[in-house]
C-alpha cells in the first residue's frame, strides 16, 4: 500500500510538468491564442520579479546567517532543554526544530549530522527526518513571497507561520512516538 502510493506520487511528480506544459500551451492553441507572443509577454516579468526579491532576501538571510554563525542556537537549545524533556522530545532534535523555520540548508545539515551520529533508523534519526519533512523554511518563504510584492508590513504572517511550525514539530514528535516509540 505504502509502496504503491509512493510509486504513484513519484510518477505524477515526474509527469506533472511536461503534462502541464503540453496541456496549457495546447489549450492555448485550440483557443486560438498567439501562444508564442503571449508567452514572451508573460515571461518578461520574470526578471523584474526575481530582482525585486533581492533586498528582502538579503535582509532576511544576513540576519539568519549572523544568528547561526554566532553559536546562539546552542545557547537556545540549553535554555529550552527542560521544556523538551517534559514533552519527551530528545534534546538532540531540538536544534533541528529551532533551525527548520530559519534555514533550509542549516536544518538539512543538522538532519544529516543527527543521522550520522545516531543512525537513520534510530528514533532520533526518524524524528529528525520527519521534522524536516513536516515544515517549510518559514522565514525564507516570507521574505521571498512578500518581497515579490513589496509588502513590508507582514501583519500576522510571522505568528501564523511560527504557530504552523510549532504544530508541525509537535505533530512529528507525536506521530513518531506513537509509531516508533521513544
Amino acid at each position: 500500500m505504502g509502496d504503491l502510493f509512493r510509486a504513484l506520487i513519484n510518477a505524477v511528480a515526474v509527469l506533472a510538468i511536461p503534462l502541464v506544459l503540453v496541456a496549457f500551451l495546447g489549450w492555448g492553441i485550440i483557443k486560438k491564442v498567439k501562444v508564442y507572443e503571449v508567452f514572451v509577454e508573460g515571461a518578461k516579468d520574470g526578471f523584474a520579479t526575481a530582482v525585486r526579491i533581492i533586498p528582502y532576501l538579503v535582509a532576511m538571510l544576513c540576519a539568519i546567517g549572523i544568528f547561526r554563525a554566532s553559536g546562539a542556537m546552542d545557547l537556545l537549545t540549553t535554555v529550552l532543554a527542560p521544556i523538551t524533556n517534559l514533552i519527551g522530545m530528545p534534546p538532540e532534535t531540538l536544534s533541528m526544530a529551532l533551525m527548520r523555520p530559519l534555514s533550509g540548508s542549516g536544518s538539512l545539515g543538522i538532519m544529516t549530522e543527527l543521522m550520522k551520529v545516531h543512525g537513520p533508523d534510530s528514533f532520533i534519526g526518524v524524528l529528525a527526518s520527519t521534522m524536516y519533512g513536516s515544515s517549510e523554511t518559514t522565514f525564507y518563504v516570507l521574505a521571498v513571497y512578500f518581497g515579490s510584492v513589496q509588502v513590508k508590513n507582514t501583519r500576522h504572517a510571522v505568528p501564523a507561520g511560527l504557530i504552523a511550525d510549532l504544530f508541525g514539530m509537535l505533530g512529528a514528535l507525536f506521530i513518531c512516538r506513537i509509531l516508533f516509540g521513544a
Partner: protein
Amino acid sequence: MLNYIWISLIAIGIFVAVGNDVRDEVQNTYRNGIPLEATFTVDRSATGQRTTWEGELVMSAGAFNEFYGIRTAASEVRQPAVISTLPSGESSIMLPIGTSTPDHWKEMAKTATSKDRLMGTVQSMQISADGRSSTVRILLEPIRFVKIKAVTQAALDYASTAVTIAIGLIGIMALWLGVMKVAEEAGLLIVVTRLLTPVTRRLFPDVPSDHPAVSAMIMNIAANMLGLSNAATPLGLKAMEELNKLNPKLGTATNAMVTFLAINTGGLILIPATAIAVRAAAGSANPGIIVGTSIFGAGCATVAGVVAAKLLQRLSYYRKELEITPSPEKEASRG
C-alpha cells in the same frame, strides 16, 4: 512582528558571538601560547638540503581531548604535517586541513591566517634512533575572535547567497509566468479554479472565486505537494502578484496573503524527497518510512497555520493595520 524578530536575530547573534569569544579568551579554549607535545612520524624526509619533512602528527584521542579540554576526538589523531627548518635554525610546522583533521582543529583553521591550514612553530624536536619518528613540541598560531569573525563572514556570505538565489529564479520565473499567461488568455485557469471553488471560497473569502489569484494559488499548492519546488515558487509569486491587485493598502499584507503563506509554510508535501534521499545516503534500511509521519506532521502544521491565520486576522491590532486611514467615522460606519 517581523521587525522585532529580525533585529533580535542580529542583536542576539552579535551578543552571543562576543560572549563566546570572551569565554574562549578567558578559558583559553584554543590553548594559545601553550605548546603541544605529539609524535611526528616521517613519511618522506630529506628533500633538498634536509630542510623539510613530510609526515604525520600522531596523538592519542585521550591526549588530544585532555590538552584542549574537550570530548570530541573519538579516534587517534593522525594529522598530515610538514615541518620545515629555516636557515636561521627555526622550524615551522604546517598542518593542512583535510578529512583526517580533528574537528577542533578544523574549527580553529576557519579563523587562522590561512583557512586551509594551521601554522605553528616547532620548539623542540627529538628524533628517535631509527630516524623515522620524533617527539615534537609545537606551538600553534594564536586563534582569537572565532565567533565574531564567523559572524562577519556569515553576513557577507549570506548577502551574496541572497543574490545568487534571486538570480537563479529569473529563468524559471520567466518560464512559468509565460505559461501562466498563455493559460490565462486561453481561459484555462477559470476551469482549474471552478473545480475547487467550495474550498477556496472558505479559505480566501476576500478573493473573488474566478480571480486569477485563485488558480495560481491552487497550482502553487499542487506543485508544492508534488515536491516540484522549481515550479512552486514562480506560481506562488504569481499568486502573490494577483493577490496584490486586490490589496487596498499596498505594502501591507492582506488576510488572503497571510492565509496563503500559512498554507505554504506548512509545507505539505506528499513525498519528502530530500529527507528520503538523506536517509538513503546514511544507509537506512527503510528510507521511505517517514512518508506517512511527514504527511501527518505537515498536515498538523498546515491546519494549525490556517486556523492561526484566520483567528489572528480578527484581532483589532491586525485589523487596524489594514485600514487605509484610521478615521473615527469609518469605525463608526462599520458598526
